[in-house]
């Protein structure tokens, strides 16, 4: 960092003519020349070479098959250099030609560098402007805003606050420690100081993610603290400390010795010399070091990724609960497929960029000069400053007062907490399969004052975090206790229970085009899906796929299966199905990937390197990859809702009765009639699913890859989970088991049937601290069952159309998120099919859009009044006090949450006092020491 600060321009003493213009070296002494100006021949040579290169390249492109942007650029650049050399050699010597060409190369290299860097910054700012121009982007958080909401809703206030708090804590730790340590290194040299310096130097090589991993493993994993802003600040601190020490060390080393000696000669003590000479002299350099360290820390994503957790709502308390920062928010947003979220991500990154650039400019203004080096203006002001010493001390006192006032504000501010109700925030993580439903519910309950943070990090991560006690609940498709790749997934020590939250179909989303037109009606048999995801079928025009799709002339394209790179419940669902139904295919694939057969169910998809598979992390990662226009030929497995969100079609999968069906809400509900649910309440895996019956469900409407998603609930207060959190979790569970299910079909899920809702409601009672409610499930307006308990969704599920039956016909209607028709493309029956298919389609709604009104026309209009009652029941039992008898838990809750706000204020006060001490103690000690020495 020294080169950033001690910027000296040595060039100025060179003979100006030689350093400025290259033509000064031309060995033609007899002609008198204007040395500073460009000669006409130079300009002409340059222009001529440029023109010649451009036109020659154009000619080449016309006559030779050169495509793309890059090849012409490379060719024309090479040609330009050649032409330029030739032109210059007309009136210069060989040496000069070399110099000119070298100059041109150097100039173009730097031009390329600066233009790339400019493009990086400009791209981010321009893309970010879409979101940044809305004022609400800075004043709102994302608690209420959904991914599909327009940019006029939601913002990054929570991330801004998070970043500022985290960096402030990190600085409060690193700056006093770092600067004192740098003073130590310089003022007390010796063997120990050298050792410390070496260690510090070594630690600057510590990759930032390892710093994050260290805090994750100690503070979070071992000590059992949750992910929080403070943990992130610690990680940033570990990362920034060596950087700041090193930079401060370099700056302090540059303090001229004679200044210190002069101070000693005046009889000052060592301390006074440091305090009054060394530190003031290097003040600008130290400030620069700190600001640059801050800029580095603010922009770091990886340590925060591991330690801060993810929250969509404002969390002013850095010690408790997840707190997102700007880079993390940007990173998380752009992973989403919706253009609005990507725009928000760019906006966040652009805001961060501007913040960092601002800090940098600040650093330049403050420092950038070596100690003792003064500008003319500084020299002028120095005289004025020394006259105003008294005022300076007064100003310092004023600053202290201001600091106190600011801290007072800080302490007062959280006194009005964001959580209006007496619900404490809870956080969970896990499945991305059901994330879309959870995100919707999470947003809906904010109106009751509940703050539920959910981070879709994959089921394996969720189960693991729940086991470690870093989250309050987890969501997973598969239970604990399975053996994956020979490893037993041990259940947690804390007591827990499973509760089904929603049903859905694992869909196969694909990106495929015939003659530039997207295919939306692809059908596949289970065996072909298995063959695709085990690398047996490699081409889209494989005869086996052709057999499934008689009306499509599929292209000779590579099939690119996109699988999950993280541990995922979706992968577990797919591999369970693969291992049970297509065991031999699956086992031979597994063996190729280096696993031992029989492979069975696994959460991490084994990938054979070089097999043309692509691995991406998260459901958003895989669906985002498939939905890229360029990525034709890709196919992935995700929950149906992701296909709806990205407007992409899904595969119609062949079921046992010979129909190709789509994972719509009703088809999933029908399919799940075949699921076997563990109904032993004593069993640890009570309510978990055995899906063999679903795979072979003989109903013509059944989707074979249907399944339930589960929430893992804590059933005892332990670690960071207490009864007040249990209250929030319980109320949230009541909400989504009953009212929340209404939205499932719209989101791309299938609501739970009555038996599982009932069982779920009894499970909720086991959460410690829950306010038990007697939910009248007939008023839930769950589309799956009527008031009498009959499964309406199954009853009303439309029969598949005849064209969906295995055979020579094929429906042309679109699927998933893309309902555009795909006309038959085959060579054969072109004339008849267009006539027949459109005729069929209007009559038979087979998509959720058309399906829902048809399936539950009675339920939907009746929704709202019933929902309102349930609202009151689930959300605000105290206000409505409908069932009565809840006063006692209510009181305890109030106490508990009051304690937490009190805690918050106390923590803020302590932080304030510590900061005050940091500001005030050094000068006071200085005064004391000085007084004693006198």
């Amino acid at each position, binding site marked *: 960092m020294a080169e950033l600060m001690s910027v000296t321009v040595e060039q100025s003493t060179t003979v100006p003519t030689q350093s400025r213009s290259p033509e000064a070296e031309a060995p033609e002494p007899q002609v008198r020349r204007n040395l500073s100006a460009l000669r006409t021949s130079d300009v002409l040579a340059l222009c001529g070479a440029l023109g010649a290169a451009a036109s020659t390249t154009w000619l080449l492109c016309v006559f030779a098959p050169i495509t793309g942007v890059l090849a012409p650029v490379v060719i024309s650049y090479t040609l330009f250099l050649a032409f330029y050399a030739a032109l210059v050699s007309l009136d210069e010597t060989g040496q000069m030609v070399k110099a000119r060409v070298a100059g041109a190369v150097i100039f*173009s290299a730097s031009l390329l560098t600066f233009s790339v860097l400019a493009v990086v910054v400009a*791209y981010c700012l321009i893309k970010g402007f879409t979101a940044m121009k809305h004022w609400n982007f800075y004043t709102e958080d994302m608690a209420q805003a959904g991914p599909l909401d327009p940019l006029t809703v939601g913002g990054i206030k929570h991330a801004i606050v998070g970043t500022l708090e985290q960096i402030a804590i990190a600085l409060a730790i690193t700056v006093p420690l770092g600067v004192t340590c740098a003073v130590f290194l310089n003022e007390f040299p010796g063997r120990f100081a050298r050792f410390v310096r070496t260690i510090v130097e070594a630690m600057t090589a510590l990759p930032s993610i390892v710093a994050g991993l*260290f805090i994750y493993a100690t503070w979070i994993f071992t000590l059992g603290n949750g992910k929080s802003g403070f943990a992130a600040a610690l990680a940033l601190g570990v990362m920034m400390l060596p950087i700041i020490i090193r930079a401060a060390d370099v700056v302090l080393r540059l303090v001229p010795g004679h200044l210190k000696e002069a101070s000693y000669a005046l009889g000052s003590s060592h301390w006074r010399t440091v305090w009054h000479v060394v530190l003031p002299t290097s003040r600008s350099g130290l400030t620069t070091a700190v600001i640059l360290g801050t800029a580095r820390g603010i922009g770091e*994503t990886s340590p925060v990724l591991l330690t801060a957790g993810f929250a969509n709502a404002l969390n002013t308390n850095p010690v408790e609960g997840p707190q997102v920062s700007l*880079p993390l928010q940007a990173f998380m947003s752009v992973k989403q497929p919706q253009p609005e979220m990507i725009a928000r991500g760019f906006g966040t990154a652009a805001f961060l960029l501007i913040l960092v650039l601002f800090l940098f400019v600040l650093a330049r203004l403050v420092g950038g000069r070596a100690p003792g080096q003064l500008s003319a203006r500084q020299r002028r002001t120095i005289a004025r400053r020394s006259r105003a010493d008294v005022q300076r001390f007064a100003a310092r006192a004023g600053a202290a007062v201001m600091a106190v006032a600011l801290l007072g504000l800080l302490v007062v501010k959280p006194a009005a907490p964001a959580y209006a109700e007496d619900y404490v925030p809870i956080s969970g993580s896990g499945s991305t399969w059901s994330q879309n439903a959870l995100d919707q519910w999470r947003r809906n309950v904010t109106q009751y004052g509940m703050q539920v943070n959910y981070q879709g990090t*994959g089921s394996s991560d969720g189960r693991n975090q729940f086991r470690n006690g870093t989250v309050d609940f987890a969501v997973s498709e598969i239970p604990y206790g399975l053996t994956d790749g020979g490893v037993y997934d041990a259940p947690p020590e804390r007591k827990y229970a499973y509760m089904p939250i929603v049903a859905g179909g694992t869909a196969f989303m694909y990106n495929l085009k015939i003659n530039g037109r997207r295919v939306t009606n692809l059908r596949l048999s289970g065996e072909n899906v298995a063959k695709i995801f085990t690398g047996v079928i490699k081409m889209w025009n494989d005869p086996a796929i052709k057999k499934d799709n008689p009306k499509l002339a599929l292209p000779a394209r590579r099939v690119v299966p996109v699988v999950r790179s993280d541990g995922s419940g979706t992968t577990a669902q797919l591999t369970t199905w693969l291992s049970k139904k297509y065991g031999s295919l699956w086992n031979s694939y597994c063996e190729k990937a280096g696993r031992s057969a029989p492979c069975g169910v696994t959460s991490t998809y084994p990938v054979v390197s070089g097999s043309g598979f692509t691995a991406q992390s998260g459901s958003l990662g895989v669906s985002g990859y498939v939905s890229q226009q*360029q990525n034709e030929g890709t196919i992935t497995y995700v929950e149906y809702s992701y296909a709806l969100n990205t407007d992409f079609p899904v595969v119609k999968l062949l079921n046992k009765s010979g129909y190709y069906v789509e994972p719509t809400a009703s088809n999933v509900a029908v399919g799940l009639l075949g699921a076997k649910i563990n109904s032993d309440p004593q069993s640890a895996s009570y309510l978990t699913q055995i899906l063999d019956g679903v795979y072979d469900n003989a109903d013509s409407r059944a989707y074979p890859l249907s399944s339930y998603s589960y929430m893992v609930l804590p059933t005892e207060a332990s670690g960071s989970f207490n009864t007040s959190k249990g209250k929030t979790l319980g109320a949230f569970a009541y909400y989504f088991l009953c009212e929340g299910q209404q939205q499932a079909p719209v989101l791309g899920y299938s609501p739970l049937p009555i038996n599982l809702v009932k069982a779920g409601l009894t499970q909720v009672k086991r959460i410690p601290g829950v306010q038990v409610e007697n939910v009248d499930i007939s008023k839930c307006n769950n589309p799956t069952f009527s008031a009498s308990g009959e499964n309406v969704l199954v009853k009303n599920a439309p029969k598949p159309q005849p064209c969906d039956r295995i055979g020579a016909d094929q429906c042309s209607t679109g699927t998933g998120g893309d309902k555009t028709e795909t006309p038959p493309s085959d060579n054969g029956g072109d004339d008849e099919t267009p006539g027949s298919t459109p005729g069929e389609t209007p009559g038979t709604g087979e998509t959720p859009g058309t399906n829902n009104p048809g399936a539950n026309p009675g339920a939907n209009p009746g929704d709202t009044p019933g929902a309102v009652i349930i609202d009151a029941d689930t959300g605000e039992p105290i206000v409505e006090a409908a069932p009565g008898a809840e006063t006692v838990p209510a009181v305890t809750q109030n106490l508990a949450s009051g304690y937490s706000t009190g805690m918050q204020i106390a923590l803020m006060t302590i932080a304030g006092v510590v900061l005050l001490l940091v500001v005030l103690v050094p000068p006071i000690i200085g005064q004391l020491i000085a007084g004693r020495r006198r």
Partner: protein
Amino acid sequence: MVFRQIATGSGIAVLVIMLLVGSFLALRATTALNSAGLDFLTEDGWEPDAGKWGIAGILSGTILVGLVAVVIAVPLAIGTALFISEYAPAGLQRSLISLVDLMAAVPSVVYGLFGFFLLQYKVVPLSLWISEHFGWIPIFAIDVDGYEKGSALTQTTVFTSSTFIAGMVVAFMVLPIMCSIMREAFSQAPIGEREAAFGLGATKWGMIRAVVLPFGKGGIIGGSMLGLGRALGETIAVFMVLAVVPAFQPNILQNGGSTVSALIALRYGESGEFSVSALFAAGLALFVMTLVINFAASSVVARSRSGAESG
């Protein structure tokens, strides 16, 4: 003396923190290393719980990303540094220096966005072109089943999310740092020797070759190595671009690759006690590698005649 005690105390505190980090890292890594033994160096997969894990794949992937970054960034950095210190007009020089330093502060997530959304698909044709014409060089080969060279139906997906693209993004990230160190070294070339070269009739390029480059050699090597060190540890930009497949994958143009830091970012959450230790072992390997490179770089920079500070 109180002051001495406070200062020494802070030194000790820093030492303790640093040693704590270091020893914890080593301790956790040792737990994992003991069970893996020599397989740690030779195994290329990453399934710690199944006992099949090692750094052969991810470390080679990290090095490949770093090398791609260095190969792209170093020529550009040298050119830019030379332009700033030797060619740029004095008025422009200061602002260019500031600009380069400023670019070094741009957050990596910004580079990641640029790489993922813009660069990725611009580079695919380049990758295609390189693989078609230089595919006979092993690292440029494409080793995907069914991939046919020169086929009109070549999949763009084969070339996305590759080590090459990730390396390119990282190259632009480390470019300013390298350039800054090199420029510092170049600008310290003594004026007397520059003028002597001109006096002997050297052209500007002749002078650069005879004076500036030999003087800045330490800066070039040191700057490149520091940039490499930075490139190896980069997480988020790589994580955004690269499809992480922990396996030995020497074909840099091909989809999929791995780096230690991206693997940590991907797997830390779902890892149990032992897997976290395994990640620590990988982190330790990366740390040691970065450490060696950084120390080598700073000693090269310090020993060179230019005496440029390594910052």
